[in-house]
C-alpha cells in the first residue's frame, strides 16, 4: 500500500492508503483518530471538514491524500486544548458560540485562516470570509461575535 508523509499538528506522520484519491478527511479521522474535522457533505459545500493546509483553510473532504502529501496540516486538535485553548477557541467558548457544534470545527478553522490574513476584520469581512461555512442551528450571530472577540484578543 502506498505511503504518504504528512505533517499533522506539528508532527511528522506516515499514513498508508490504498487509494491516492482518498480524501484527507478520512485519513485524519480514521487513520489518525483526529475527529475535529467532520464529514458534512463531501462536496466542498458546507465547511464542516475544514482544516488548515500550510496555514490556509482547506476542505479536507475535497483534498486527496496524494495532494496533502508533504504539506503541513493543522486540525482543531492542533490549535489548543480546553485548558489551553487557542485565542479563537477561547473566544468561541467565551461567547458560547455553539449549539450542536457540528459546524464548530469548520467555523473555528475558517476563522483562524481569516484572522491569519485579516487580523482586524470588520463584521462584514467576517461574514464574507465565513460565507462558505454553514450552520444549521443558526449560531451565526455568536460565531460572528466570537471571531470579532478573537481579533481583539
Amino acid at each position: 500500500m502506498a505511503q504518504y508523509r504528512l505533517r499533522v499538528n506539528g508532527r511528522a506522520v506516515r499514513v498508508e492508503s490504498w487509494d491516492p484519491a482518498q480524501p484527507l478527511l478520512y485519513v485524519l479521522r480514521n487513520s489518525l483518530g483526529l475527529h475535529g474535522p467532520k464529514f458534512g457533505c463531501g462536496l466542498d459545500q458546507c465547511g464542516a471538514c475544514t482544516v488548515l493546509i500550510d496555514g490556509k483553510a482547506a476542505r479536507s473532504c475535497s483534498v486527496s491524500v496524494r495532494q496533502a502529501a508533504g504539506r503541513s496540516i493543522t486540525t482543531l486538535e492542533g490549535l489548543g486544548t480546553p485548558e489551553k485553548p487557542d485565542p479563537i477557541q477561547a473566544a468561541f467558548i467565551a461567547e458560547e458560540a455553539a449549539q450542536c457544534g457540528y459546524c464548530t470545527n469548520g467555523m473555528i478553522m475558517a476563522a483562524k485562516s481569516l484572522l491569519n490574513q485579516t487580523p482586524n476584520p470588520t463584521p462584514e469581512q467576517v461574514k464574507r470570509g465565513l460565507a462558505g461555512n454553514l450552520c444549521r442551528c443558526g449560531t451565526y450571530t455568536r460565531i460572528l461575535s466570537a471571531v470579532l472577540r478573537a481579533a481583539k484578543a
Partner: protein
Amino acid sequence: METLSAISRRDFLWTGSAVVVSFALGAALPQNGAAQNPGASASLSPPLAKSLDPKEVDSFLAIQSDGSATLYTSRVDVGTGLRIAMTQMAAEELGIPVERIGFVSGDTALTPNHGGTGGSTGVPQGAVAVRQAAATLRQHLLNLGAEQLQRPVAELVLAEGQVRPANGGQGIGIGALTGGKRLALPVDPKAPLKNPAEYTVVGKPVPRPDVPGKCTARHPYLQDFTVPGMLHARVIRPPAIGAKLLSVDESSIRNIPDVRVVRIENFLAVVASDEWAAIRAATSLQATWSEWQGLPGSEGLDRHIRQTAVDHDQSLVSRGDPAAALTGAAKQLSATYSWPLQSHASLGPSCAVADVKADGATVWTASQGPHRLRNYLAGVFGIPADKLRVVYMDASGSYGTNGGDDAAADALLISKTIGKPVRVQWSREDEHGWDPKGPAQLLELRGGLDAEGRIIAWETQMWNPNNLPGNRAVLAADAAGIPQDHGQATGSMVQNTEPPYAVPNMLVTAHWLKETPLRLSNLRAPGKIANVFAVESFTDELAAAAGADPVAFRLRGLSDPRAIEVLQRAAEMIGWQTRPSPNPRPAQGNLLAGRGMAYARYKQAENYVGMAMEVTVDRASGRISVRRVTCAHDCGLVVNPDGLRNQIEGSILQTLGRALHEEVKFDRSRVTSVDWKSYPILTFPEVPTVEIALLDRPTLPPYGAGEPATAPVAAALANAVFDAAGVRLRTVPFTPERVLAALRSTR
C-alpha cells in the same frame, strides 16, 4: 469538572481506543467534562441493576460516596442546552454545584423513560420531572441529616453538598449520608420545591459543559464513535423511491479492497473495514433497479394538495355565525398561504453504530427518542426488547426526526446479517433525499372587518396530511421486506391556526388528507411556523385593509398583559413608527425598506413571542435582505438566560432560512434537492442583527424554548416585505423569482 459515575467512567475509558491515536499525535486526552454521556458498550457487560422506573428517585439521580451526583434522563440535548438547564434545576434543589452532577441521557439500559425529546418539552416536562425527583431527594437527605446530627429538619439546610445547621456548625456531606446506596425512594409529587426567591443556580447563565469540548475537538460525537472490529457500511438507496432491485453486478467493485455486498430483497449495502473503501464501493457498485414514477412532482404541489382526497374534516373552532358576519362585513378579504415540504437538513448526515451479538444487541444513535426507537426496532427485527440497548450520543442537530432512526435500522439490519459491529454513515444525498420530511401545508383564510376596522369574522381552512397510527416506517425494513408499521405523525399541526385576537365569529377547520407525496416526520415547531405565517400575515392584510398601524391593530384585539408586553417590547426595540403599511417612502435607490411585526402565543398556550423585522427588498434582483430582528420572549421562568438566548437566536436564523430558501424539490421518482446548492439554507452574509428581550417570570412554570421563537419569523418577514414593497408574499420560500413576479403583478 464532571464527576463520572462508575458505569460512565468505565465506559469512558472503554472508548479510549480512538483517543490513544490522537494522544500519540500530541493532542491531550479528552476531559471528563466533555464525556457527558457514556459512549458505552452494553454488549460487553451485562446490564446493571439500575432502577429505570420513573416513579423512583433512583431512576433519575444517584449520589456517589464522594458527594457527587449523576442525573439520568431519557431526554437528550440535541445542541439545545437541555443538559445544563436540567442540571441547573436539579442542582438548585439538591444544593450540589452543577459541575459535580454528571449527566447520562437517552440510554435505555441506564435512564428512566420519562418521554422522548421534542416539542419544546425538555424543560417543562423533562427537567420538571427531574426537579421533582431532586426535591424528593432533598427532603430525604434533610431527614437523614436530622437523624445523624440529632437536630430537627427545620433547623437544617442542604447546601454545597452538605446537610448542616442553618445557623452554622458541623454539617454532614451527602456522600456520607447516602453515597453509593440505593435510595429506594418513590418520587413524591408533593415534595416542596425551593422558593424561586432563593434561587442561586436557576436563572444564571451557567456555561454549557459541552461547549469547550466542542471547540477543541474533545467532545465525543456519534460520528466519531467506534467499537473494536467495527466495519463501515454504506446503504445504496434506489434511484426512484419505490424501485425494486433487479440485479447487482458485484464485479463492478472488484478493484476495491476488502468489500462485501449485503443484499436483502431491495436492501442493498456495502461493508468494508476501510470507510473510504465502503464509500467508493457504494458509488461504484452497478445495480439495476426497476422504473418507478409514483410521485406527483413538486411543481404545482398546492394544486395537488387541493385535489388530494380528504380522509376527514375536523372542526377546531366554531363560534358565532362567521358566514353571516362575513356577508355583512364592511370589508371582506380572503387569501391562501402555502408552505413547502422541508428537510431537517442536518449539517452532519445521519449515522449509527450497531453491534448485534448472540446474547444481545446495542445501537448507538442520535435519535431524539431512544426508548421509542428501542421498542420499535426490537419488534421489527425480532430482538427481545430487554436484549436491545439503545444508547444516545450527541451528533449534528436533528430538529426533529431526521434520518437518524433510519440509520439505526440500517446499522442494526446489517450487523444482524453479518454478525459484526457496523457503522452506517449516510451521505449528504442520503440525508437530503431520504430524511422524513416536514409536511407541506396549505391554509385558506377569510376575514371581515366592521365599519370601525375591527375583525368581526374569521375563517381558517387548512389541509394537512392525516395522522396514521403506529410508528413511522424505517427505510431498511421496507427495503428488506420485513413487515412493519406505516404510521404517520408530524406533530401538532393545528395549533396557532386561530388568531390570538378577539374575534366574535370564527370557524377553524382542518381537512386531513388521505395521501401525501413523501414520508413525513416532525420538523421543528411542526405546523406552527406555517400556521402563524398564515394567521399573522392575514392579520396584517386586515390591518392594511383597515388602514391601521399593524401594531395598534393587534393591540386592539389583545387583552392578555403578557401578550401586550411582548408585542410592545418588540416594537419599541426596533423603533417602530406608528403608521399603516405599506411604507409611504420606502425607496433608497433600488432598495425598498420596510418593517414588519408578528406575534404568537406558541401552541396557543405557552410562550409569548413578539417579533419585529427591518428588511430591504431589491426591486431589480428581487432579493430580500433582513437587516434587524427584535424579539421579546416570555417563557415563564428563565432557567439559563444565555442558553435561552442561544435557542431564540438559532430559532430566528434557522427559520429565516426556511422562509427565504428552503423547499424540497422532487420529480416523479425521487427527491432532487439533495445538496446545499439545490437545498440552500441561511448563509453567513445574510445574517441580520438580532436583539432579544427576555421577560423573566421566576414564580411561573417554565415553558420550553427550542421552538417558540421560530413561529412568528416567516410572518414578520412577509409583513416587512409588504411594508417595503407593497407586495404580499403568500408562498414560502420567498425566492427572488417570487418577489420579482409579485412586483411585476402590481405594476
